[in-house]
């Protein structure tokens, strides 16, 4: 099944997708992030939250295009979802194939490990953006005001977490997506953790006993 998804992803990227210049794309996203930093006065927690919100709105819309171009049906279980997101979705929109790792034993969570990130092609974060407190969180920020004062690092590609969250919500999967490590912060790899919170419909969720 995974092999088919990979081939599907590559085919869709090659044939059905219009391309844009990579430098232009990276510079555009870079200016969005730096402008947000200026607007929020370098309050990186707020910038992270805003990027997530933007991603969420994008993801809600991207899912339609994804389904139309990939012609995929329902995923059988959350593991299937993970493979689809990694091999087809990211391939189609960003031409990258993150690896699916750390699948939880009950298959309710997985990690995506990115070995390349076209959004962060030339980026070097300023010192202040790399500082992190213990347990600073990325992804959706519940209590915006309380988080605002805690020092947080800038999760540069946080828009991707929002996209994953928004897209999956449209197919009835409520998830939490957040970065746990990022090469821009000096970590070994960039890893996004996606956790299933609940399935949003009354009908029997696919794959559950």
């Amino acid at each position: 099944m995974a092999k088919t998804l990979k081939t599907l992803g590559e085919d869709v990227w090659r044939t059905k997708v219009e391309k844009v210049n990579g430098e232009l794309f990276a510079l555009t996203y870079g200016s969005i992030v730096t402008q947000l930093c200026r607007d929020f006065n370098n309050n990186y927690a707020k910038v992270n939250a805003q990027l997530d919100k933007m991603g969420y709105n994008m993801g809600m819309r991207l899912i339609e295009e994804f389904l139309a171009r990939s012609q995929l049906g329902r995923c059988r279980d959350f593991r299937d979802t993970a493979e689809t997101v990694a091999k087809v979705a990211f391939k189609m929109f960003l031409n990258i194939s993150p690896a699916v790792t750390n699948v939880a034993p009950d298959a309710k969570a997985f990690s995506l490990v990115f070995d390349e990130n076209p959004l962060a092609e030339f980026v070097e974060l300023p010192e202040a953006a790399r500082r992190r407190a213990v347990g600073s969180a990325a992804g959706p920020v519940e209590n915006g005001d309380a988080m605002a004062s805690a020092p947080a690092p800038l999760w540069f590609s946080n828009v991707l977490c929002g996209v994953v969250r928004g897209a999956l919500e449209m197919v009835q999967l409520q998830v939490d997506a957040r970065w746990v490590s990022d090469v821009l912060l000096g970590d070994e790899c960039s890893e996004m953790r996606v956790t299933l919170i609940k399935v949003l419909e009354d009908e029997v969720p696919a794959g559950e006993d």
Partner: protein
Amino acid sequence: MSYSRPTSTIPVPRYPNGIACIAVVGKQNNPLLIQTFGNAADQELKYHYLAHMSCDYVDEKLRSGSKSGDLYLGLLCTIESQNVYGYMTNTRVKFLIVIPTTVPTKDSEVKAAFDVIHSAYIDLLGNPFYDPDSTQMVASPRFRVRLQTLAAPAAS
């Protein structure tokens, strides 16, 4: 992704040995980076002064109107037994390489070195957090590391 960069015509680039200093100077002749290497590491001030003086020579070269539009300006001057080579981008950012006169250096090697510096500078500009108009010195560690690698003695 691959981008087109100015490449020297030499298939295997060899870089000059014994580079004492690389300087990057902004369009208003403000120093952006002055990095010394090897034995010269403790004489930063002297190289600041050298770089400043060399900018006058760059201006002179421009005024004497080399219509060729070549970015490489060649040997600008020799001060205190140091050869200063210059290179200016179309955006008026200047790169200077200082090599002691005792080191035999080929023009082609210097050009290859300038291409590397130019490439590194382009990548620096790609960083959205870098302000190209800033008059501050460049803080990017990655840029410095690339220059360091360039100036390290060539493993021949």
